[in-house]
């Protein structure tokens, strides 16, 4: 048997297995088994994919390829999944709907892995749909809460439209090349052996729009703040990190590899979308009073920064995208984990006001939040700054100086809203009406510490991480 598919099989098998404890055994077992199984499955899948680091292996009739890029992204998804499980342990959705919650989470991670390793249009579409459908349900899983339902339904409708646009684009891509294999598409495009140039243009526009919806990049971002706000916070964390990474993986696989020879046709559209996302995200973030919505707008802007690297179409650009995905995951999980803590400790924990006085009452958590937010803003010398520096540098090398300028200006604007929660934490006094003091629990504190350490490790070890990212980016175009 081919071992390339083992991480995928482990994830799917654990997802199915996580449903079983609901049927048998004592109450304690029923309560603790699903999250434990989920953690085990994610860890096992992560270990297996590390073992697969190396030259390309293919499986499922060449529809799924495991190269260094797949391994690196699978690790991002798995780590994001593990942190989400730890954040979920005391969430109402995680407690009330244990089995299906963890089953769907594992399914979503499996879908993302399928996207990251897609070597075929069918596999890519299937992966995107598996992760989307699982997340529609996860958003709405707190069915007793109107906002959660509303968030799930909105995500479903917008996501389905995005999927339909993407599918029509993939259909045209199949139509002009006559093959669904991404490697063969690259050959046909290189040889200009196409059924129609204008159809290819249409295909690219539709694919960019469809994936733009999934990544939450402007002008396809309208759903993001509402859905992020209504969904359970751990799920929002997962959406903001892993889903974004999966959409970027699809961008890299299609545009960075299969369509690289027609870069002149897609460079400008993707660059424009990146610039729009940066402007819309950063300006929208300025007007928010809710910390959760602020982070939602921040994630729109971050999708823009990541798309800069895709638009360059170079090896440096892809390396920078991967580096920034890893750094972005660490800092975003940290920021959301602090919000999970405040949600449990005080009323109205999603607002910026709820952060007031955190610096005095819990200096360690406040310090991690500060590091993560400054890193998101691109404050030197933190990991976010290094990542942005690499992205803007790659853009300048690829004749996209204007895009680098937009990105840099956007980063400066973004300081305007990233500094507000920091100011609230350190300079304002806590308000007595906020007091509720529920113990947030050790797992959440662990997540906060891990993400803080992650950002610092990425800052200090940027050189080694870049090496790994470069190796992964090289495998993107390797035969």
């Amino acid at each position, binding site marked *: 048997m081919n071992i390339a598919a083992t991480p995928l099989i482990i994830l799917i098998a654990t997802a199915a297995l996580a449903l079983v404890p609901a049927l048998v055994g004592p109450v304690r077992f029923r309560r603790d088994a699903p999250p434990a199984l989920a953690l085990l499955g994610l860890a096992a899948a992560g270990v297996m994919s590390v073992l697969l680091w190396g030259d390309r292996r293919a499986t499922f009739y060449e529809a799924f390829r495991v190269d260094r890029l797949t391994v690196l992204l699978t690790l991002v998804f798995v780590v994001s999944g593990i942190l989400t499980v730890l954040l979920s342990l005391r969430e109402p959705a995680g407690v009330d709907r244990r089995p299906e919650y963890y089953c769907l989470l594992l399914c979503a991670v499996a879908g993302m892995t399928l996207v990251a390793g897609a070597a075929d249009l069918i596999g890519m579409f299937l992966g995107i749909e598996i992760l989307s459908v699982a997340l529609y349900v996860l958003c709405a899983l707190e069915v007793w809460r109107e906002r959660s339902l509303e968030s799930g339904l909105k995500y479903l409708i917008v996501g389905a439209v995005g999927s339909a646009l993407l599918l029509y684009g993939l259909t045209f891509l199949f139509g002009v090349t006559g093959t669904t294999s991404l490697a063969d598409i690259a050959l046909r495009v290189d040889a200009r052996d196409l*059924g129609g140039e204008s159809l290819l243009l249409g295909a690219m526009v539709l694919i960019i729009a469809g994936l733009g919806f999934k990544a939450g990049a402007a002008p396809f971002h309208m759903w993001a703040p509402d859905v992020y706000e209504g969904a359970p916070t751990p799920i929002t964390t997962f959406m903001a990190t892993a889903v974004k990474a999966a959409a970027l993986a699809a961008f890299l696989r299609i545009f960075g590899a299969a369509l690289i020879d027609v870069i002149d046709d897609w460079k400008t559209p993707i660059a424009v979308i990146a610039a729009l996302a940066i402007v819309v995200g950063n300006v929208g973030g300025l007007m928010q009073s809710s910390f959760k919505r602020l982070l939602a707008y921040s994630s729109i802007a971050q999708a823009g920064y990541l798309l800069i690297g895709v638009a360059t179409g170079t090896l440096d650009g892809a390396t920078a995208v991967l580096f920034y995905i890893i750094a972005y995951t660490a800092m975003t999980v940290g920021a959301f984990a602090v919000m999970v803590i405040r949600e449990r400790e005080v009323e109205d924990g999603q607002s910026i006001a709820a952060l007031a006085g955190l610096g005095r009452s819990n200096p360690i958590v406040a310090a991690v939040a500060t590091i993560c937010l400054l890193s998101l803003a691109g404050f030197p010398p933190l990991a976010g700054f290094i990542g942005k520096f690499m992205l803007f540098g790659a853009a300048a090398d690829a004749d996209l100086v204007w895009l680098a300028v937009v990105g840099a200006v956007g980063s400066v604007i973004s300081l305007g809203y990233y500094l507000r929660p920091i100011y609230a934490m350190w300079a304002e006094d806590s308000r007595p009406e906020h007091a509720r003091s529920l113990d947030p629990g050790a797992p959440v504190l662990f997540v906060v510490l891990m993400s803080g350490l992650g950002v610092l490790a990425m800052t200090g070890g940027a050189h080694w991480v870049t090496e790994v990212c470069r190796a992964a980016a090289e495998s993107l175009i390797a035969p």
Partner: protein
Amino acid sequence: MGISLMYYLLVSGGLFALGLLGVLIRRNPLLLLLSVELMLNGANVALIGFSRHWNSTDGQVFALVVMVVAAAEVVIGLGLIVAVFRQRIALDVDGMDHLKG
């Protein structure tokens, strides 16, 4: 010889455009789901057409996968709509304005 590719693409484009129009102007989530289904099936028609044109079965396999995916999406969508209905929220996406900043 069978029907030329152009007719497949015309029908497919028509279905897709109709679906997109429906998504843009309808407000009832049930009809929105219906419109999205039209878009997906428009793509399916094109897939079958291209599959015949290239004389390969890949497009047909793709279309089968899309049908399964579309079914899954509708199941989730109807489930959510029923859940919303039980919460007695009006079935009108313009009325869904709890989430606004």
